[in-house]
């Protein structure tokens, strides 16, 4: 198991960080959050066409960059660090992983960024969830409702799990389309939107059925949960770095507040937690990349640990910033909301631990 970063990954990180620093700084993200264009589709296009990082999971013969989960994880770290409002999780991770598992060629349009997709499940769905039963398909027409779908409002296609005459199946539904309604909700996380998907006889193209559909959905959710740990790591790292800098420059009682032991010890604990989150996130990315036998286990550990780590770092960030941390003006709240909502995303820590109980044979009482 390789838990380190390679040279390619370092280069990728530098490229993405440079782009985000110039086009997506926290003040810009905050300003955009309340506009009619909460997603920064300009940055999204640059990530796809200029940096080519949107198709890292996709093999070259399918129009992708032919990299993999390890590289994708590093991009996610940087996107988390910037709470960048781009549909990477929905499109480049969830929809891409699902279509890859179905060996469907539509993945090529996601890989080069010409098309944006998402996965039609509630964002809270854990990898071990039973196949969803909310959508039914009849002769290619889908009906039903799916709540809290991530990145749906900018999606051109959505991969929808549905039941048809043959049992579980995955369909691709194009947006906008007849019988497809997207109902945006007011999200707790302003930088990652969710919307409800209402299907009423919408046309769908069947891309997988039966065991393949079940396996493809699980693969997408597993990849999502495992890679989300890296995004959470990026969120946590920003919170730690920003708080450390603040406590070095904020003076009270004639000293920088960072010189007080009460502050130091809290930050030392955050640092230790972030260091640990890095190890579990790398382990998950590596397991996904190598297809290790214990991938489900390593992903569950990462999901359980990194979620809480990000929440701890974000909550400590607010507390140690004092009053300024409670203002709208300071971007800390964007990170708090991202950390808290991503704690629920793709399996809460508790659901990951429940999955682990089964995987490592520690049965309930």
């Amino acid at each position: 198991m390789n838990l380190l970063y390679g040279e390619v990954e370092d280069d990728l990180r530098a490229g993405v960080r440079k782009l985000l620093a110039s086009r997506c700084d926290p003040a810009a993200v905050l300003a955009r959050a309340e506009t009619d264009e909460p997603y920064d589709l300009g940055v999204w296009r640059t990530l796809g066409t200029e940096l080519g990082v949107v198709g890292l999971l996709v093999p070259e013969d399918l129009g992708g960059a032919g990299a993999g989960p390890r590289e994708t994880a590093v991009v996610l770290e940087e996107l988390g660090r910037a709470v960048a409002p781009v549909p990477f999780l929905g499109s480049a991770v969830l929809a891409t992983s699902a279509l890859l598992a179905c060996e469907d060629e539509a993945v090529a349009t996601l890989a080069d960024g010409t098309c944006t997709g998402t996965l039609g499940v509630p964002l809270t769905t854990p990898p071990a969830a039973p196949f969803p039963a909310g959508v039914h398909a009849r002769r290619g027409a889908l009906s039903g409702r799916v709540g809290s779908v991530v990145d749906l409002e900018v999606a051109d296609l959505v991969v929808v799990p549905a039941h048809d005459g043959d049992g579980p199946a995955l369909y691709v539904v194009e947006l906008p389309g007849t019988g497809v309604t997207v109902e945006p909700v007011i999200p707790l996380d302003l930088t990652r939107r969710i919307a409800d998907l209402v299907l009423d006889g919408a046309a769908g193209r069947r891309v997988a059925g039966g065991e393949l559909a079940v396996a493809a959905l699980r693969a997408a959710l597993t990849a999502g949960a495992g890679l989300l740990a890296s995004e959470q790591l990026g969120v946590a790292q920003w919170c730690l770095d920003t708080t450390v800098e603040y406590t070095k420059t904020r003076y009270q009682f004639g000293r920088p507040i960072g010189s007080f032991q009460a502050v130091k010890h809290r930050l030392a604990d955050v640092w230790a937690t972030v260091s640990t989150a890095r190890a579990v996130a790398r382990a998950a990315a590596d397991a996904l990349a190598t297809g290790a036998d214990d991938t489900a286990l390593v992903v569950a550990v990462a999901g359980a640990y990194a979620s809480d780590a990000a929440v701890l770092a974000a909550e400590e960030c607010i507390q140690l910033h004092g009053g300024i941390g409670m203002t709208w003006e300071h971007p800390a709240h964007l990170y708090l909301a991202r950390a808290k909502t991503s704690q629920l995303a793709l399996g809460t820590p508790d659901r990951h631990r429940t999955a682990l109980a089964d995987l490592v044979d520690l049965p309930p009482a």
Partner: protein
Amino acid sequence: MDACRGQEPLENSDKPPCGGGGTGLWLCGAMIDADEVRRRTRDLLRACPPADTDRLEFLRARFDAGLAWVHYPVGLGGLDAPRALQAVVDAELDAAGAPSNRPRLNIIGLGMAGPTITNVGTPEQQQRFLRPLWTGEEIWCQLFSEPGAGSDLAALATRAVRDGDDWVVDGQKVWTSLAHEAQWALLVARTDPDVPKHAGLTYFVLDMHAPGVEVRPLRQLTGEAEFNEVFLTGARIPDANRLGAIGDGWRVSMTTLMNERVAIGGAATPREFGMIGIVARTWRDRPELRTPGLHGELLRLWVEVEAARLTSERARQQLAVGAPGPEGSAGKLSFARLNQAVSGLDVQLLAEDGLRYDDWTMRRPVETDPAGRSPGYRYLRAKGNSIEGGTSEILRGVIAERVLGLPPEPRTDTVVAWRDLPR
């Protein structure tokens, strides 16, 4: 190991302890490769077949061949070779059934005294001490902590006063493992009370069998005595056994402690290694003990222990590619916290059996194997994990200042003469 003293250095270092490690390693590294080391090991095995050679004689010959610790200087048991080549030697010797120097019986000697003597010792001291240290003929202990100097090691009060060619030492040391078995001790004592505390210390090698050295077992809350108290009353040390310059004791101590950390940096461990494995087995074997609340707690700790294991593994990988990061220092913090939590859960899970203890007899183990003791023992012993080798509070301060670069606390104790410090 000295259980209760401050530990300031933290940076992982894979540098060999020899002073000229940089260029020497580079120059010699080009000549000494795995093949060369293997050839020399086979030469040794031919000259001293383990089956027909006395154990100590073999170990001495191995030392003289530079195969004791290959990253040490030539002539001091090494070849000035990269540390990684030691594995080649060890594999060859293991395969040939060669005797071991039983490193676990002389941890302080190998982990701390060896590097310190190599770094700051005179050639005479190096020739006198290193070979019997490495072969295990002479056991070492470390006299650092005192009743009044735990986390604040530099405040120590044991006095060494010059008397002709000797130093006369008076004071009390504590938390000394192996003192009752040791021939030699690493000793830090105050030689000048009129300067600030860090400046008035000097480092010595003390003969533990000298008159005026009294060792008493220090019984712990577990019932046993892993450590000792050492009382020094007019004990004499020849000036020839001073390590480093007069007043340079703090710097030399830091060398010792830095090497302790490198020595401790361990091997990869498997999943469910240690206490969590014990609890997990109980959980699997005894369904009647399970409750929903304990299930939640067990899973939470299982995840944290696995995450900590991956963190150590990542630190190990960083070290292996020559890019040590500070992450290793998170390891001790989480190890201490998790050991305490898991051992507490273990006792709780066992219900009636958790009420029982195996043995309160005062014993003096050289090595302890918590897995072989009762859960109550493990619970009690784990309390020391956040105290020994640097308390968790000191460690957090060190991380905050050295890793995160936070400003130091305002201090007055470093600028006034030691004599004037409140105590």
